[in-house]
Each structure stands twice: as C-alpha cells, then as structure tokens.
C-alpha cells in the first residue's frame, strides 16, 4: 500500500484547474437536468398551483387563495383519508416487516443450496407489475375466485365466500408489494452477522427463544427500522392496491389526489393534496433518519 498517498481527493490527472472542476458537472448534467426539469420544477409548479383557484370547468384559474389547504381541514373526506392512509401504512408495514423478518431469518439459517431458490421467489413480486398483482388477487378473493373454490371443494366451508373489497384483501395486496424490499434489506443485515454467535449463545445455555430475544433481535434492530421505514413511506403514497382490492370507502390520500386530478379536473386542489402528501413523506423520512442515527450513536 502506498504510504503517505493522497488524501480523500481521488487522484485524477491534475490538468489545468478549470477543466478538473468542470468535468464532474459535465458528467452530472444529464442527471441534474432530469432531476431539476422533471422533479424540481414540477414540484415548484405544483406549489404555486396549490394556491390557484378552481372555477367552473377550467383546470385552474390563476390566483392566490388558501382555500385548497383550508379544504383539507374542513373536508371530512380528506381527514378520513388521512387517517385511513396512516392506519393502512402503519399496519401493513408492521405485518410486512414481521413476515419479511422471519423469511429473511429462515433463508439466512438454511444451507446455501436453498438460497438461490428463495431469492428467486422473493424477487417475483418485484418483477411483476402492481396491476398484475392486483389482478391476481382479484381472481383469488371473490365468490367465484380460487379461494372460495378451494375452501368449498375441500369441504372446509359450505357456501361460497368472498373476501373481495375487504380491508383484509387490501392488506394482503399491500404487504405483497412491499415484502421483497423488506426481505432483501433484512437479509443483508442477517448476512452481516456471524452465525457462530448463535452457537455461542446455545453453548452458554441459551434456549432458541432466549437467543432470539437477547442476541438476534438487538443485532437486527437497524434492519427492522430501515425496512419499516421503506415500507411505510411506500405505503403512504399508494392508492391503486387499496382502492382496487379494498372496500369503496377505503380512500387513501393517493386516491383523492388522483380523483381530484383526473376525475374532478381540479388542479389546484390536487396540487395542494400532493404538497401535503410530499411534506408528510419528507417529515417521516427525516424523523426516521433522526431515530436511526440516534440508534447508531447509542450502539457506538
């Protein structure tokens, strides 16, 4: 190893100074262009739009009003949607992390030859479009779906049953979509743990349950937090799965936004809802970031 070598700065060729400083910006220009033109500007545009007025059939009328934001406080549909979204995201995230955790732990403990198969399995939901997933469950839950048929023909129940348009179906769908992310995050955390630690615990007299609580759980805390965050943030912004699989009253903010834009053509209101949703996501991200950095500080 070259001792006394360069500091943090990478050792690129030190040509004339200006070219060295310009190069990274040139390289990043396409990415920046896209990010600014198609994300930064639209967000700013939406921000401005949220203060516009909505009159008659036109998309929007330039103006300045807080009506759209006020509507959120006064509109019962919005506050219901807010509550629904939170509830949905929270519960589905907890379930997803729980399932993902056990799944990842199993794959980690199992011998190498099973790994590839399970990883391929875990990849499936990622490779399939959300709409296909929705449609898959669409054919499973209703009266004439596979579930009903299987239960009846195996004699477990006598009448056809439908779980379609229930909150349960919505949860099943939501969890399905976010499961792979949780699984892979947690699997990489597990892989970072030396399996001998489990042996050591057993060697010292720890039962499997004790080992889990005292050894495994603390070591994987970070993974649990990260995958929960991931799952939650995604679930907060979703609208397709709950609205398709759940009852008609299960409105999420995402659904409302879509409705305002494409259904009611009320651009300002849709923009306002979006801004609120975005801010909410940003706040959640920051909270989680603070919590996780605190945790790492404690762990040293």
């Amino acid at each position, binding site marked *: *190893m*070259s*001792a*006394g*070598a*360069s*500091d943090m700065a990478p*050792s690129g*060729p*030190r*040509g004339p100074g200006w070219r060295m400083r310009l190069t990274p910006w040139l390289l990043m220009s396409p990415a920046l262009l896209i990010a600014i033109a198609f994300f930064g500007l639209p967000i700013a545009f939406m921000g401005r739009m949220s203060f516009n007025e909505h009159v008659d059939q036109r998309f929007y009328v330039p103006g300045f009003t807080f009506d759209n934001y006020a509507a959120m406080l006064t509109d019962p549909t919005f506050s219901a949607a807010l509550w629904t979204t939170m509830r949905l995201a929270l519960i589905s995230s907890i379930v997803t992390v729980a399932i993902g955790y056990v799944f990842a732990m199993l794959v980690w403990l199992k011998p190498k030859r099973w790994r590839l198969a399970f990883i391929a399995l875990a990849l499936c939901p990622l490779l399939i479009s959300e709409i296909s997933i929705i449609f898959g469950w669409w054919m499973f839950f209703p009266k004439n779906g596979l579930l009903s048929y299987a239960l009846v023909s195996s004699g477990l129940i006598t009448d056809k049953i439908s779980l379609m348009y229930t909150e349960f179906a919505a949860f099943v769908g939501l969890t399905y979509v976010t499961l792979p992310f949780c699984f892979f995050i947690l699997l990489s955390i597990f892989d970072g743990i030396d399996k001998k630690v489990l042996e050591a615990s057993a060697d010292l007299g720890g039962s499997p349950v004790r080992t889990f609580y005292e050894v495994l759980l603390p070591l994987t805390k970070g993974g649990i937090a990260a995958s929960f965050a991931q799952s939650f943030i995604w679930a907060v912004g979703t609208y397709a799965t709950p609205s398709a699989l759940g009852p008609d009253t299960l409105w999420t903010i995402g659904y409302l936004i879509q409705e305002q834009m494409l259904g009611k053509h009320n651009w300002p209101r849709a923009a306002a809802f979006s801004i609120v949703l975005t801010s909410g996501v940003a706040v959640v991200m920051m909270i989680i970031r603070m919590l996780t950095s605190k945790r790492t500080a404690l762990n040293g």
Partner: protein
Amino acid sequence: MADTNALELDGLRRAFGGVVAVDNVSVDVRRGEFVTLLGPSGSGKTSTLRLIGGFERPDAGAIRINGSRVDHLPAYQRDTTTIFQTGALFPHKTVAENVAYGLRMRGVAKAEIAPRVRQALEVVRLSGYEERYPAQLSGGQKQRVALARSMVVRPTILLFDEPLSALDLSLRLQLRAEIRRLHDEIGFSAIYVTHDQGEAMAMSSRVAVMRSGRIEQIDRPEKVFAEPASEFVYTFIGESCCLRAQVSAGTAADSAGAPLELRLAQPLGEGAWRIYIRPSRLHLGRTDMPNGLKARLDFTEFLGDVHRYHFKAGKLELFVDHPGAVVHKPGDAVDIGWQTADMVAYK
C-alpha cells in the same frame, strides 16, 4: 542530448493536509542509473514516486525529464511508466492486450505492435502467454506482465512502486534478480521504491535513504552501508546492536546507574551515548581487541548458519553471531571485543 540527465528533481515539496510528505527533495538521475528510494512507511518515498509519475502535483519545486519541465503535465502525457505493487493489470484484457495498451496509446503503428509485444514477453520469459487472462496467472507472472507492459513502451524513466512486496520470499528473490538482469541487459533508467533494504542494496546504482520526506543520504550501496551519514541511516540499514551508556568522570554506567565493564580505545566525553556495532563485527572471548565489554549470556538462538548469543550487561542488551557449536552456557560471563573502526557513537 547525451549529457542531460534522464530525471531531475529540484526542491520538490508536497504536503497533504498538515503533513509534509515530500520535503525539499532533489535528485538527479543519470541515463541508465537505477536509483532506489529506501525508507520506512511515511518516509515520503512513494509520494515522491507519484509526483514523478504525475499522479500528484507538487506544491513547490520542479521535475525535469530529459531536460524539459513536466510538473504541469498529467500522467498520461509524461514519458514515464509505473510498475505497481499489485501489478494493476487490466483484468478484462488478455496479456497481449495489456502489454500492447501503452503502445496503442502512443500511436505506434499497428503492424509494429504485435512483434514488439512478443519481444517484450520473451524478455520477461513469458512467451506463449499472449492469450491468457490475468486471472489465470500467478502473482509472479502478473508482475512480469506488468514489467513487460511498462518496458515495451521504452519510457525515459521506469518507476517501480514496491513491486515485490506482495510476493512471497522465494519469488521476491527470483524477480529481484530478474529485474537486475534486465537492467544490466537493457540499461534503463529507474526510480525504485522499497522498504526492504536487502532489495535496495542488491539492485541499485545508488540508494537514497529517506525519512519524514527528506533524503538523509544518497550514495552507492556500499558507501551507505559502510559510511552511514546519520544515526537513522545506520540503524535502518543492516542490523546493529545499540549500547546505551552514561559516561561521567571517566567511567561508564548503564541507564540505571550500574557500572559497566566497558573498555574503549578512544574514551568518550561526558554524557549519554549510544554506541552502535554490527553483530557481525562483535567477537566472543577476545580480550586482545582494543574495545571490549564484559557481559553475561542470557540465551542463544539457532539461526541456521550461526548461533545468535544474546547478552545482558546491566540494562544493556546486545547479541553476537557465532558459527559452529555453542561455546557458552547461559549465565557465563564473556568478554566481547570489537575494532574501533567498526563502531559508531552518537550522543
């Protein structure tokens, strides 16, 4: 043209953050010279090499290759090539493609490339390996390809960045001899960086011993060994025993104050001294020598050709190498003698 030096370093200086890695280094390398930069880690030898190669820019000073200044030129415009510690072969290219790379970059005619590559591989004794990939080569073979790749371009200066450190001992000795042979055959100019003084001594026209960014001494290997310019150079090159003695009122004592049976031909003045002698120049049981010390045998080590006798005199520790069967047992008081010319003393 024949008189210009291949390389001139003039007051080179480079600092990283607050640390001065290269401190006013000046060296002239004549055509065909093999100069080694020798020193412990942090001595600035690698930093100096990287300045020459163009991977870092000096804060002050000048670098001249064949008489023209190059310090403003980036690495790909300098007439130097480097042999890296890990070889740094391009893993996705064959051996032949690796060796041809430099030639292609310099615009050598396509027809000329293949024969030159073949010749270069012949020189490093890897003929027939053209189509292999680096992953299929052993460590020694990789370094030889790296050598071929750097040499085929015929640069003014070859830069070696500790190329043998990552190899095991027998391989190191083998390649060391090869590089020496190549130098004798081809006569390239080179700057070689290493922390292994055996390598430096064996291969170089001149050795520059570096410490903390400065060159402590630069001279032919024999002179550096026999006439070290400073205590650091003395202790860095070869093995030595250090006798720490307090001299006061004509008597010598160790650091704890216990008197030493030390006999010196040229008495030392008052103060705390460090006396250095190479273990090969210490002799057992010789009271006839002008200098001597009486010490007690602590234990012996078997080193193959010789036994190493470890002695203690008060707080002093020293060792003597002696061939043949063991002639003393632990606890024996022995007279150890040496010539005045073989000792150096620093205050």
